[in-house]
């Protein structure tokens, strides 16, 4: 399936030869790629292939040691002032949701807009309620995360990221920790988001999602992008042996 939307002209994320080591273990072995505005990229690959590390490098939760990463025109370096700014432009959704358990759903969503974007409380709360509406759980606003199901928590997490009005959204295996019957509700929200024109990088094992929504699919293995291409190319005619092997194992 092809998307209706048109991709932007500019590369919003540029990676050049990104390398990353954990001790002696090399997690990224020179990743080079460009991602355009409004593009939806799905990253697949076996566990330990470096795909999570890759997207965590993009908002500098992990620090790469070699190469360059340029996000929205700003190079990620050890300059701290830039990093807060970048992170507020780049939303991230985690496998384990990572909602703040001591705050209500509404407070989870309004906290960062109030203290980072310095929005007045009323405005932040209005935005938050609109977002909770968008992800389909406005009635849960006053509850604590522990009282919600996994799928609902992940949708709150998405709303929380969106509240910062990010230009890029990163998803790190957002459905892996969910019970099967809850996966769809999260994927639906992500699809809707993709169609609205958000730039997204999604690490996932949901091949259906990749096939349906992605503009491009990256196959990661041994710390590099082994193969990339449109979903059509990827699922019908993969060229690399490793890709073929991987797809044969999971499909």
């Amino acid at each position, binding site marked *: 399936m092809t998307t209706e939307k048109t991709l932007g002209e500019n590369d919003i994320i540029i990676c050049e030869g990104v390398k990353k080591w954990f001790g002696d273990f090399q997690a990224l072995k020179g990743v080079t790629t460009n991602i355009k505005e409004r593009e939806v990229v799905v990253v697949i690959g076996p566990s330990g292939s470096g795909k999570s590390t890759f997207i965590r490098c993009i908002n500098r939760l992990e620090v790469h040691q070699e190469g360059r990463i340029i996000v929205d025109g700003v190079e990620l370096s050890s300059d701290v002032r830039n990093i807060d700014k970048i992170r*507020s432009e780049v*939303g991230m959704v985690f496998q384990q949701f*990572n909602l703040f358990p*001591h*705050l209500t759903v509404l407070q989870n969503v309004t*906290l960062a807009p109030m203290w*980072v974007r*310095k929005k*007045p409380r009323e405005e932040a709360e209005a935005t938050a309620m609109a977002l909770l509406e968008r992800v389909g759980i406005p009635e849960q606003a006053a509850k604590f995360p522990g009282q919600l199901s996994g799928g609902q928590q992940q949708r709150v997490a998405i709303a929380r990221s969106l509240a910062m009005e990010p230009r890029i959204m990163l998803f790190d295996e957002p459905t892996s920790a969910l019970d099967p019957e809850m996966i769809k509700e999260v994927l639906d929200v992500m699809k809707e988001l993709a169609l609205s024109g958000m730039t997204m990088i999604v690490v996932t094992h949901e091949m259906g999602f990749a096939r349906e929504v992605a503009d491009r699919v990256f196959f990661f293995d041994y710390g590099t992008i082994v193969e990339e291409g449109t979903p059509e190319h990827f699922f019908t005619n993969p060229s690399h042996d490793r890709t073929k092997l991987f797809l044969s194992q999971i499909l």
Partner: protein
Amino acid sequence: MTGKIILPDIPELEFAPELPPKGPVVWMKDNLFSTPRSSFLTVVGLYVAYVFTKGFTGFVFNYAERRWDAVTDNMKLLMVYLYPNGTSERILDAAGEPINQMHRVWISLGVVIALTALSLVFWRVGGKMAPKRITRTLQISGGFLLFVFLGVTILDYVFGVLFGFDFGGWEWQFSTKVHFWTILVGVVLLGGGLLVDRAMGDRGKEETISVIGLLGALAVVVVGLLWVIELPRLSGTEPGAPKVFQPIEETTTLPWTIMLGVAFLSYWVGVGLRRVIPDRAGTRVLTLAWLVSFPVLVMAVLRDPGWDEVVAPGFSLGNYLTIGAAFLVVGGLVIWAASHPAIGEWSAAIVAAIGVAIVFSWSVSMLMFIRFSLFAVLLFVLGAKTFGGATQVRRRYLLLWAGLMVFLTYFFILVKGGNTVETQTPSPFGGFVLTMIIFVSVMLLSFPFGVLLALGRTSTMPIFRLMSVAYIEVVRGVPLITWLIMSIIFMPFALPIGANVPDFVLVILFYAGFSAAYMAENVRGGLQAIRAGQKEASVALGMTTVQTMIFITMPQALRTVIPALVGQAIATFKDTSLVAIIGLLDFLALAQGTVPGQPLYRGSLRTMLIFAAFFYWIFTFSMSKASQRLEKKLGVGER
């Protein structure tokens, strides 16, 4: 292969089978005598309980040397030490009349009680309680009385008179009157409890009784008893002299009744206020009121109420007001600028300038007020990036600054204002008041310091980590009593010439430093218990490290360590009694040294110790109960 339907319909719900209630014999067999080993342990346990209660209650109720009049006659001394109550012929006012300032103590107590009542309302403390719990408590206390007064006497008779064993212990001869009444009370409690229990049946398990209402009723009963039971007073100075009863106006009956009224009034006012004020605003105001009330009560109500001393010669009130106003305005402007979103690099310059001013202020002779105010400015400028931003937020931040400056000015004026409570001692504080002042000050001071140490210890910056670790290890490696002794032996030499800091202030500072080290380790435990994902999620949203710490990490860390922190608070409360060793007359020092040292009450040491133990226990037990409730309440929303 085709499937097969196993269950044609969804089965109806079944209730768990109701077990028939167990009789006491079955219960005892199940719980006390299930195996030979448990039977043995039960018998040994009962024997130990028998010997202990016999000795202990024998002392409390019967032993010749018990001197409960030492407690009642010295209650004022034990609570507020030498606070002028109009009985001293040496503390006279201008007209030559004895000065009585006890109303200040009652006023401050009234403020605390009113705040407590309001807090109960706004924090929605206390739920419902099953009547069964009350009846069970009645049964247990009745059973205990019967065990002690009937059971032990019978056992003693059987073993001692019939078999000739002597288990030792205190003299065990009650007057018939004590015996009769106690056994009667025991029978009424046990029997009444059982009867009510049976009458209520299953309804007794429903939570229908309001905890607050029950506490209120208990308070009414206790205060009511003050009116009914007359406290004896010694008529002369000879021991064994006939007792007379104190007239009501000389007792604390009336003040306590007023306190009860204050409690009820504040509670109902609170209930009314809650209808118009949202809970969040109410709890915020109350939290602030609690924080401010402690220093203000200590300084203003217990120390210096009037401006007459403040404007006395040798102390210039004008200077303090001018400096306070200058800091309020100039500091406010600086903070207003620093919290501007476009401040950028200028922020560092401002911080540097204030830093220079602070270093300068400490290197020359300077009013402590200015030094502290400079620190406050620095803190606010540092926090400006985190808490500033939109104009609305900045305005609130500035308001906070104004509030702090007003408070600081007021506090310093009071500290400098001198002491109008005449007691012929360096400070009017002693007894339970001193215990509470030490306890609350130590907790208030050690908490922020301990949190800072915990942050330092978990910091990625080696210098902070090293300093924190060194501090914590050194402080924890030396016994508290050593630090306390050092505080009053060494500090007078270490302080600048002319500094005349009272002992209890030095003790509080050292104790707070000590407590902070333990606090730090507790908080660190909480910090480590937080999953890494929390921090990641927070920074991924663009929050700074400081914001993450304040809004995400700390609240969660503190929540997880509440039991540990309450444990530490209880330990701190009890350990305040160590100051008795270095000669501060706290509650225990008066109870175990001063009262038994009075000519009339020589030999009252044991009585006083039992009273002191009971008194401490009431407070620690309440703290422990309160923390259980707090844990339950904060448990909402936890995983």
